[in-house]
């Protein structure tokens, strides 16, 4: 836990430091090249924009893009379906309709409505507008966001991770039918299941009640861990760095421990025995705030911040390759950047496990608090 906190702190500080310097640089480099060079990422502001674009969800799955010799921008990847709930009901089309445009200049007409994509969000244009107009702070004035149920890159990642987890563990489950000790992949998965059971669930929830919560804890642990790891692959998923995902996971934990709270738990939360009666309402407010707000919030922010910070730092350090080119030359800059990125990626592999562990561990701890039965004296 200590190491985890230190790592978290270190990464947070590193990210803050990175963003501060990048933002300073942003002012001096504004508008120097723009789009003329065909979308190459060369300057600090472009790097910042690129990192932020990566951290956000996206509507297509792009692996890499390059500018061909004819000056044409080529994207390597595949489009994903866009499913939006609009003022006229459900509308679906493929994200390729936007032609990788992300600043609202490409308008897609579908079902009698006009759509634009601005910073990875789908906007529905007002009925009389033909193009998106922006105010000074770059907010669209004649378009509004729609409820977006698209299979975005994150949703695709979730589905992929779910499929992997499902296939892996049903295979393990089948193996037990024929042999006592699993082989192959199952041999690697079994200790992880045992780890979650013996190191997370049992000590925190207690021998009597842990069984009921095992499916939830196992699912959450592997879900977060696999998605964290997928975020470190060149496919560049950033699922657990999406605030919506971590909010959802934290709410699940909240629902699980609130719905399983024992009589003792509610009594200790709402009407703490052994405390002067005047203090009890105050304590009740504090305890309720703790269980309903602070604990889920700490869960969702910890996971979100760690993964976002990790991705930002790794990408930022990778960008040193470009930024240090003038000082150290191509080979020097690439070498420095490669060594540092490798180092950070290794740390991120650790963090990927650690954050899955901490989330599951704290979920188990909170569940343990809720189902605990006190000895009455």
């Amino acid at each position, binding site marked *: 836990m200590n190491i985890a906190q230190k790592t978290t702190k270190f990464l947070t500080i590193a990210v803050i430091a990175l963003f501060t310097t990048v933002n300073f640089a942003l002012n001096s480099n504004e508008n120097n090249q723009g789009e003329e060079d065909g979308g190459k990422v060369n300057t600090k502001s472009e790097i910042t924009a690129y990192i932020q674009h990566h951290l956000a*969800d996206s509507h297509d799955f792009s692996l890499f893009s390059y500018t061909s010799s004819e000056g044409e921008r080529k994207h390597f990847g595949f489009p994903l379906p866009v499913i939006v*709930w609009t003022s006229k009901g459900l509308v679906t089309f493929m994200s390729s309709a936007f032609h990788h445009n992300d600043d609202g200049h490409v308008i897609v007409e579908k079902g009698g409505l006009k759509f634009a994509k601005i910073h990875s969000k789908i906007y529905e244009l007002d009925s009389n507008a033909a193009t998106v107009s922006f105010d000074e702070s770059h907010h669209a004035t004649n378009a509004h966001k729609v409820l977006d*149920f698209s299979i975005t890159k*994150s949703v695709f990642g979730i589905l992929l991770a*779910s499929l992997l987890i499902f296939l892996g563990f049903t295979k393990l489950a089948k193996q037990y039918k024929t042999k006592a000790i699993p082989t192959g992949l199952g041999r690697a998965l079994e200790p992880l*299941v*045992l780890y979650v059971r013996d190191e997370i669930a049992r000590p925190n929830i207690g021998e009597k009640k842990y069984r009921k919560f095992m*499916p939830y804890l*196992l699912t959450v642990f592997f879900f977060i861990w696999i998605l964290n790891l997928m975020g470190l692959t060149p496919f560049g998923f950033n699922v657990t760095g999406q605030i919506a995902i971590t909010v959802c996971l934290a709410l699940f934990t909240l629902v699980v421990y609130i719905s399983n709270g024992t009589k003792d738990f509610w009594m200790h939360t709402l009407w703490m025995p052994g405390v002067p009666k005047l203090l009890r309402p105050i304590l009740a407010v504090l305890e309720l705030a703790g269980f309903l707000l602070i604990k889920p919030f700490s869960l969702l922010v910890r996971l979100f911040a760690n993964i976002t910070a990790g991705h930002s730092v790794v990408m930022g350090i990778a960008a040193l390759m470009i930024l240090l080119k003038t000082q150290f030359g191509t080979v020097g800059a690439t070498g420095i950047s490669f060594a540092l990125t490798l180092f950070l990626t290794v740390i991120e592999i650790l963090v990927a496990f650690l954050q899955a562990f901490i989330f599951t561990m704290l979920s188990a701890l909170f569940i343990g608090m809720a189902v605990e039965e006190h000895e009455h004296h």
Partner: protein
Amino acid sequence: MDIFNDFSIGLFALQAVILIVLLVLLKKFAWKPILASLEERETGIEDALKSAENARKEMQNLTADNERLAKEARAERDAMMKEAREIRENMIAEAKEDAKEVTASLIEKAQASIAQEKQAALAEIKKNVADLSIGIAESVIKKELSNKKDQLDLVEGILKDVTLN
């Protein structure tokens, strides 16, 4: 980085649905069988260890029993041998005692018979002496009438014979 502007309700909803479906599917097809098998295996191992321990204890008891039996047998043998020795010694002692008694009685009898013989011999001698004396007296009386000198010679002659006898 506007976190709350970044929050997508659609993504949240899809994630919730997928997670619930995943939970239900995994619970049914993966976690339940896996955890059940693991527990089964663990109890199996525990039972096996317990029975092994029991077997070991039983073995220990058996060897202890064997040792106890051997000890008892040894003690019994010792006791039996001791008894036999005692019996033998007693027998020897008794025999000696008996022998002593028998010899003593034999000696006694012998002495008695010797004494008897002696008495008988003495009685015989006495009788002989009496006979002899009577004979002598007879002869002396027969010869007295003839010659005094002859008488004396005769007595002397008889006495000589007697001494020679």
